[in-house]
């Protein structure tokens, strides 16, 4: 298995190798050591490869991932798996701000805490956070699922569209146009599927509450002006 030591090898070499994989290339598993907070590590993967990163990464790790399976044994900087298209990204430690920002597909699992704006402007991605999430998470979330086993910070789901939010712990405050909604069988089914995929054991879907858009801001009306 090829190993890239980022304290020695330039990032360009790692990323161009990950991009240049001809279909059916024999190497499909890679290891990265000494990431030491580097930015854009394994950004732009467009093939079903697995990348195991030993240590913590900086901004935009696994950015725009399309089909790769990336695991970070450490913490991740802002924008991890931003705009992910498919595949999965697993963060063993904590994730900084904007985790899974504008993601369109695939699964992002954060085993520690995520900071503010987790799932901001999400467009179809599934995000499962074992710990807590920070303020303004799922801001303008359009679709996809955000599952949080811990607590959520202020203004959860502000200006939400159709993204579905499930929080097991407390919610410091809800953003404008985001309300608690009734948990129906299809939600419980979806939730258990997501928990299963994210490797969560021993936690029942009914321990979660569901949050979604009140859709009051879908058409501009001056009576809602204070919500702006």
């Amino acid at each position, binding site marked *: 298995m090829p190993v890239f030591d980022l304290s020695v090898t330039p*990032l*360009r070499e790692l*990323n*161009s190798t990950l*991009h240049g994989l001809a279909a059916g290339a024999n190497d499909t598993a890679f290891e990265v050591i000494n990431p030491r907070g580097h*930015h*854009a590590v394994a*950004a*732009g993967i*467009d093939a079903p490869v697995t990348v195991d990163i030993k240590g913590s990464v*900086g*901004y*935009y790790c696994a*950015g*725009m991932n*399309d089909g790769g399976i990336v695991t970070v044994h450490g913490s991740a900087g*802002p*924008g991890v798996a*931003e*705009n992910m*298209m498919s595949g999965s990204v697993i963060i063993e430690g904590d994730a900084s*701000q*904007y985790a899974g*920002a*504008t993601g*369109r597909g695939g699964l992002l699992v954060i085993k520690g805490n995520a900071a503010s*704006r987790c799932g*901001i*402007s999400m*467009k*179809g991605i599934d995000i499962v956070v074992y710990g807590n999430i920070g303020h303004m998470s799922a*801001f*303008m979330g*359009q*679709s996809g699922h955000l599952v949080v086993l811990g607590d959520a910070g202020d203004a959860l789901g502000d*200006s939400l*569209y*159709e993204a579905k939010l499930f929080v097991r712990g407390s919610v410091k405050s809800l953003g404008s146009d985001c309300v608690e909604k009734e948990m129906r069988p299809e939600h419980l089914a979806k939730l258990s599927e997501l928990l299963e995929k994210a490797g969560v054991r021993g936690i029942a879907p009914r321990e979660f509450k569901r949050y979604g858009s009140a859709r009051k*801001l*879908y*058409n*501009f009306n*001056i009576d809602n002006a204070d919500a702006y």
Partner: protein
Amino acid sequence: MSYHNPYTPPRKSATFDDHTLAEIRRAAATGIYDIRGAGTKRKVPHFDDLLFLGASISRYPLEGYREKCDTTVVLGSRFAKKPITLKTPITIAGMSFGALSGNAKEALGRGATLAGTSTTTGDGGMTDEERGHSQTLVYQYLPSRYGMNPKDLRRADAIEVVVGQGAKPGGGGMLLGQKISDRVANMRNLPKGIDQRSACRHPDWTGPDDLEIKIMELREITDWEKPIYVKVGGARPYYDTALAVKAGADVVVLDGMQGGTAATQDVFIENVGMPTLACIRPAVQALQDLGMHRKVQLIISGGIRSGADVAKALALGADAVAIGTAALVAIGDNDPKWEEEYQKLGTTAGAYDDWHEGKDPAGITTQDPELAKRLDPVAAGRRLANYLKVMTLEAQTIARACGKNHLHNLEPEDLCALTMEAAAMAQIPLAGTNWYPGKGGF
């Protein structure tokens, strides 16, 4: 005895003029601010306030047509492995599929290609038709990230990170429900028929120190091939240009307040941002101070209408310009032949700016298939190509008259100013003097 007052004509207030009175009534009636398209309509200092000196006894002109005046421009020479080379420095600015119909976007792609220049996507993503019909296509990277995906990043010829635009520096996007057709809603992953609000800051970065890392990520995803533009509205051109260079941009796009928008609050368009003329010199100064003039290219947009405007922007130090509103007019926007329908909409040809309502008689700013059918993309593409060629010929004519064999050799010293405002903004001497406000002596 009774005193008879002689007739004095009624006098309207300059402060509370007709437009202001109507606007107050409209606000009182609707409770919503007025939203419209296009750029600022107020009169602002512009290129018309500058003149070229031309040739005379000490300066010799080039012969028209035979003695070559080169108009090519290379964009993205700083870091991109594949810079863009254009036959003319006039590019088509970013306008979205959603704000414009599919036919209109196709027409812009065809026209730009015929003229050997580039066109740009908009806040909605890249359509296959636009990519198919555009020889050189710049792909915008915006706060909304609608339709954003790595495949389109890789099939684009350049990437434009949009921080802002001239009509609304600091404003987010606003596309009211009428124009979100099924296809637009699907591309943007939005419910159909809603008023779409888009954020004013990028979701995953804030400030130039973060922008530097975002640009590096985009380069890594596209293997450092594509030129990366940074587009900003005219607000603090000196610092914005310097910060874009420090963040690693190949090209800076500076859009003055005359630059159009698909839909924004009128109060924003008319009261926020600076005129294009006020932005060019500070931006060029910033590039010169960093020793990056010509190394990082500067594209100026906002109110470019003719070859003279192009020549003046280049003389002040820009490498290229972009046209938006003018391109729409070339393919048929606000054409008097639709006057009847404009009047039905309560407006008139030349004033129609409710582009966000999607009822455009010319079939350009609409998603209504019946209206969009009126625009033949092939014919409209040819109209745009003709217009681009005329502007290029006009700029060449002026440059030859100033003795230049390349448009980039035009200099500020080839110009003089007619007004104090233009002289001060562009630091070009008032005609007949060697003085502009802020310079010693007279």
